[in-house]
Structures are given as C-alpha cells and as structure tokens.
C-alpha cells in the first residue's frame, strides 16, 4: 500500500481532542521532492494530520515514520531538534516575530540550531533573494504587506534547507495574485532542493500546485491519486 522510497509515512493515525476525534485512522505518505496537498472541509482534521506528521503533536495511536525513524516514540527534545533541522514551516499568519526585522526572522531557525548571527543572516538574505524580498531585510514585519510577509515566512521555512516543508494554508490570508506567486516560489524552491512539501489547503487553485492530493474527511484520509491508479 505504501509506495517505495517514501520520506514520511503515517499509518492508522488516531488523535482525539477531548471526546471529539480529529483523526480516525488516517494514512499518509510523501516522497522527497513531492508536493502533496491535504484537502478537506473545515474541521476534518487536516491541520491535526499536519501537526502529527511534523511531530508537533503526538497521535494517540498509529505510527509516523520519518526517514526510517519512528517519530511518535521520540522524546519531545528530539522531535524539536528534528523540526529545527529537517523540517520547515509556513503558517497562514501571525508567525513572524513582530520585533525582529525580516532578515532576522528568516535567520531565526538557523540561529536556533546554533549558527552564528552573521552567517545565519547571510544565508537568510540568499533565500530572501530567491523569494524576491531581499530589499525588505531591515524592515519589521509590521511594515511590509501581507504577500511580502508571507514570502518572508516561506524564505524562513526554507532557510535550513529542510527535507520537508509543512505549509498550513500558506495563502489563506492573501489575494489571488500574491497567493499564486507565493505558491509558485514555494514549490519551485522546494523542488529545486528536492524537499517534500505537505500543503494543507482548501483551495483547489492552490492545491493545483501539488503533485497529488490527499483528502481528509471525518478524520479519515483518501489518497485520490492512488485510488485512481489502482
């Protein structure tokens, strides 16, 4: 059932918040360099799936295997370290530290892994150039537009050269043009570094940037591409 060569695989995930089940036997897998859209109605468990896959939340049961390692049995510190070094994150909004300048925000994940400030900011600037926001370096997030801020966030998610980028509604707060541009830059950058992207979205136009979509409904997942090929 699980294709060969997957980077991140989840099987039979169950997770409940209180009495409400958020995940009820969900499955997932992603290859290096693959962009997978996670779709489904609100409250279906999309974000919970993403949080489990990223090791932010531990599932109640089920297994998550990343690069041969079992994620759900790792201690918190190890999972945090994994998130710092191997994963990148983009959220809908409110993720940039308002006091730090844009370049400092982008450099933050590198700094968390212990990279020296100058070097981290040099790398950060490189990624900001790729995301076409290099000129915003010394502005604060409050002084840039939503689209620019989101590109800064994408640059930040890529700055550690992660193997998996988790994007939770990355265009949710943007207009179409900016949304398209962010998606284009994100997927291109990810493909060029052979990073996998887990993209949670409810917009088909955004999902169209993916290679394949997984639908989550009532805590269960359906891999549409696989069903089709089967």
């Amino acid at each position, binding site marked *: 059932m699980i294709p060969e060569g997957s980077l991140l695989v989840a099987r039979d995930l169950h997770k409940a918040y209180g009495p409400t089940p958020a995940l009820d036997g969900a499955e997932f897998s992603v290859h290096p360099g693959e962009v997978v*859209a996670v*779709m489904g*109605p609100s409250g279906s468990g999309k974000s919970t799936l993403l949080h489990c896959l990223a090791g932010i939340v531990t599932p109640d049961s089920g297994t998550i295997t990343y690069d041969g390692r079992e994620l759900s049995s790792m201690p918190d510190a190890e999972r945090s370290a994994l998130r710092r070094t191997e994963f990148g994150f983009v959220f809908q909004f409110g993720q940039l530290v308002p006091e730090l300048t844009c370049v400092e925000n982008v450099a933050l994940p590198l700094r968390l892994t212990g990279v020296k400030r100058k070097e981290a900011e040099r790398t950060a600037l490189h990624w900001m150039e790729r995301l076409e926001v290099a000129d915003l370096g010394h502005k604060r997030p409050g002084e840039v537009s939503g689209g620019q801020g989101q590109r800064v966030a994408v640059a930040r998610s890529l700055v550690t050269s992660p193997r998996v980028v988790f994007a939770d509604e990355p265009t949710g707060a943007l207009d179409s043009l900016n949304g398209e541009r962010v998606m*284009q830059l994100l997927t291109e950058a990810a493909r060029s570094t052979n990073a996998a992207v887990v993209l949670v979205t409810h*917009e*088909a*136009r955004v*999902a*169209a*940037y*993916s*290679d394949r*979509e997984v*639908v989550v*409904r009532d805590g269960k997942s*359906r891999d*549409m*591409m696989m*069903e*089709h090929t089967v």
Partner: protein
Amino acid sequence: MSIGHTLLGLLESGPCHGYDLKRAFDEKFGHDRPLHYGQVYSTMSRLLKNGLVEVDGVEAGGGPERKRYAITAAGVTDVETWIKQPEKPEPYLQSTLYTKVVLALLTGRDAGDVVDTQRAEHLRLMRALTERKRHGDLSDQLICDHALFHLEADLRWLELTAARLDQLATEVRS
C-alpha cells in the same frame, strides 16, 4: 446530462409509474426545463430494451393503462458506475454534478465520494493548466487563469452543495 441514468437513479428508491417519474424528475432536477412525457416514455422503453428496468405491473385505471417500472440489478450497477465516474472537467457541469450528488444521497450513497472523485478529476486538469501557465506567456496565463477560476468555482459549488444536502439529509433522517 444523462436522463436515462437520472431516471434509473430515481427508480432505485422504489418502483414507480412513468408519470410519477416525470414529476419526481421535474421536482428535483428540472425546474426550468420540465421533461416531456414522451421523453420519459421513449427513455423508459430504451432502458426496458437494455434490461436495466422491468415492468413491475400494469394498472388499468380510468384513463390509459399505466405501467409501473422497477430497476433491475443491471440497472443498479449502471447507476453506480455512472455516479462514480467523474465527469470530464469543463465549465457548466452543474446540472450533471448536481444530479449525481442528489441521486447519491437519495440512494443512500456517499455524496462526499462523488465530490472527492470529481475534485480529483478537476485537479488533474487544473494541474495541467497550472503547469501550462508556469511556462506560457501572458495570454496563456490569462486563459489558464480563466479556466482555473471556473473549475475552482464549480468544485467549490459542488462541495457546498454536497455539504448542504448532506446536512438536509441528516436533518430528515433524524
């Protein structure tokens, strides 16, 4: 839109007279374009010939005789295949998609599956359009954008319709 499949789907809920079928069809799908009775009659006879329906009984009433039709096992399979088969993504699919969703709910099938399958089909086309847009010139981009927005609109409408009807069905059942 396939009238034959629609009538078959309606019959799946139980045997029915031809005239009642027309009324059910008009009520659920044909608000602005009511079916001619002749259309029903010719369709039913084709379905009868293909073995997808059978005559359940004949009533001799005050007027002309009335046939009661029932769906056959082959008919049920045919409906199933039709509902599950995603439509080729193109604009203005709403009547067919709507019919499928309604029939799925009427016949106790999962309308969500219909939506998922259709979404996958839509996305397949949208991915191609997105890819084309990526490499094309401005006019390509504009044309692709138009198509993408329409396809997305259809999908969103379909998702909303499924959700609305699902809600209604839940309310009716409870």
